């Protein structure tokens, strides 16, 4: 059980049931030239209108996964089926119709906006998808004003620039938006504004989000289901309630216990699992379960056999001893 939870566990069921996934990722791999396996066999589904949170520490492959899905990176293995079409081998021209459906919001709003284009040019895009009234309507929807359309990115604060990035992503009317750390570069008081905006837009437009972040509390707030990545693999994938209230993988538990909570009483009394050492390098992953060198539960089996992702207590988890957890 989550050490913070003093109430009875809420019932767990696996998100809104929709038969056809919008996005279906199977055994996705990314091996860089140096032999680094940044993403090593990742599979998940994303239903229309759903948010899947993707969490993990730096180097776990979460951003690489997001970039492969929008084809900013060419995957080296596996399939990405969007609406039933495999995107991984499409030539650039054939990919174009799907680009309207698949958009991305980036971490650093300034780095992702062209400094030499006005907001109008950025939002309407190279293919001039939108007319000026449409651009203005969209800017107003994300909390900017009509007169912002003719300004340049440097004239805005970080939170406003992120609103421009969101408007840009929505201009083509996407069905899936990959949000890669959309609030982590923003001031604390601005983060909540952007999180609320993303949530409202999702409700209005039925967007599906792949919400990539290292901040577990923001992911919890946004997501229907959550996947935890470690060293290029998903180690646990399940409903938000299952993951946060009853984490089954020792790594998920350690992550949750490491997040400081803004309550001194909780901080003074909670049990904390402090992991020793750093995450290993994806260039030389440990044999067996890649988490075993840092795991308190590790047995001989963990050092030799990689645990498969399997169903335990209503979620998928890759741990030989997931049942044995307290």
């Amino acid at each position, binding site marked *: 059980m989550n050490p913070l939870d003093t109430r009875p566990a809420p019932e767990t069921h696996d998100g809104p049931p929709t038969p056809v996934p919008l996005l279906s990722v199977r055994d996705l791999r990314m091996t860089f030239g140096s032999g680094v396996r940044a993403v090593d066999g990742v599979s998940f589904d994303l239903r229309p209108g759903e948010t899947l949170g993707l969490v993990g520490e730096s180097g776990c492959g979460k951003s690489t996964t997001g970039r492969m899905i929008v084809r900013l990176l060419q995957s080296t293995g596996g399939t990405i089926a969007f609406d039933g079409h495999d995107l991984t081998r499409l030539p650039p021209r054939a990919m174009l119709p799907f680009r309207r459906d698949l958009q991305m919001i980036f971490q650093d709003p300034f780095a992702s906006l062209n400094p030499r284009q006005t907001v109008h040019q950025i939002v309407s895009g190279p293919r001039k998808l939108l007319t000026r009234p449409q651009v203005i309507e969209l800017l107003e929807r994300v909390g900017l004003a009509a007169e912002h359309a003719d300004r340049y990115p440097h004239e805005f604060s970080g939170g406003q620039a992120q609103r421009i990035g969101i408007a840009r992503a929505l201009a083509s009317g996407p069905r899936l938006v990959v949000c890669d750390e959309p609030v982590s570069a923003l001031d604390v*008081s601005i983060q909540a*504004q952007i999180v609320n905006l993303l949530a409202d837009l999702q409700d209005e437009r039925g967007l599906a989000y792949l919400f990539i972040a290292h901040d*577990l509390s923001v992911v919890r707030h946004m997501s229907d289901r959550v996947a935890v990545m470690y060293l290029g693999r998903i180690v646990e994938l399940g409903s938000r309630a299952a993951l946060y209230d009853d984490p089954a993988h020792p790594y998920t538990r350690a992550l*949750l216990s490491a997040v400081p*909570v803004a309550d*001194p*009483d*909780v901080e003074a009394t909670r049990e904390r699992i*402090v992991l020793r050492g750093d995450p290993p390098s994806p260039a030389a992953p440990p044999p067996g379960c890649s988490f075993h060198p840092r795991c308190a539960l590790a047995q001989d089996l963990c050092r030799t056999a990689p645990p498969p992702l399997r169903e335990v207590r209503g979620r998928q988890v890759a741990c030989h001893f997931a049942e044995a957890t307290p």
Partner: protein
Amino acid sequence: MILQVSGLTVGFGPVTVVDGVDFGVERGRTLGIVGESGSGKSVSSLAVMGLHRTARVSGSIRFDGEELVGAPAERLRALRGRRMGMIFQDPLSCLHPFYTVGEQIAEAYRLHFRASRRAARERAVEMLAEVGIPAPRRRAAEHPHRFSGGMRQRVMIAMALACEPDLLIADEPTTALDVTVQAQILELIQRIQAERGLAVIMITHDLGVVARIADEVLVMYGGRTVEHAPARPLFKDPRHPYTRGLLASVPGLAPSVPGLAPSVPNLAPSVPGLASGVPGLAPGAPGLDSGEPGLVPGALGLASEEPGLLPGPLGPASASPGSGPEDGVESGSGRAAEGRGSGRLPAIPGSPPSPSAFPPGCRFHPRCPSALPACTAEQPPLRPAAGDRKVACHLEGALR
């Protein structure tokens, strides 16, 4: 008090970035300084270290009874690194890439204690062992690029503590680190503090980090202190509307019960007649145009968060129906309980002011849900309030 700062004011050219801030810290205690960008939290700590070359620094900084404002550079140099240590957010940019970490840790020790190279090298190895770096003798001979982010921060801590200082200033020491590594570094700082009776000033934007390690908290906004309180009362019963808003806007990890209001007191003032008419948000109010180059009056509330506060044309257009600050928790998503069950976050509208254009009066008033006409004109003084704390708000006592 090992450190007592009073009336600290720091300016760069015509811009006053820190405006009359008081704080202090005792041996063995931790002061957390919380604020967003432009709040002056880092500038205050750099002033304590005497690291501002071109700034105007006034007020008083007394370290162990000695006045540091106006002290000769040589005196500051003798204290810095020896009795006051500092660690920063990005350890890689603070480590010299050409020298081994052992040489860098040894340097300050050699200068301050006139130790031999050999003795200083031994001290460096000892320090690396103390901060939990495996094989310290071998690692001391390696260059910074061979260390991971967490290990580099350990090296920085070893460097800051090699001369056994009395005060450690940590400026966002874990912000660039992963959460599991952050936990290791915080644990290390707490262990060393307990062993040596070190006074610690922890500067951060992360309220969770402050709750974990601070005894006392200073909340800064726009270069001034808005609230100064012992940690427990600050988190349990925040008094200043900014502190309340900040705590409310951070999603927690505690399990959510659908429809449950956030555990933060209501922001609506209980004084009759206050709820309507927010002067700070009226178009053309001073400070709005100047605050942000790209901001128009009316767009300040940007957000859809508080349509009731926005008479401007944007308000209704950008608001989702029924999402006022009070009912915001229940509204928002129409999804099943399994969906975004925690609903909307109670966000603070607008953005933090830039130091070159602080609004007049209370610097928080353009974003404050409870602002009165007086707030736009008069800066509230930092006054003592219930529970051994100080709050700078005209409405202190009237808010519930």
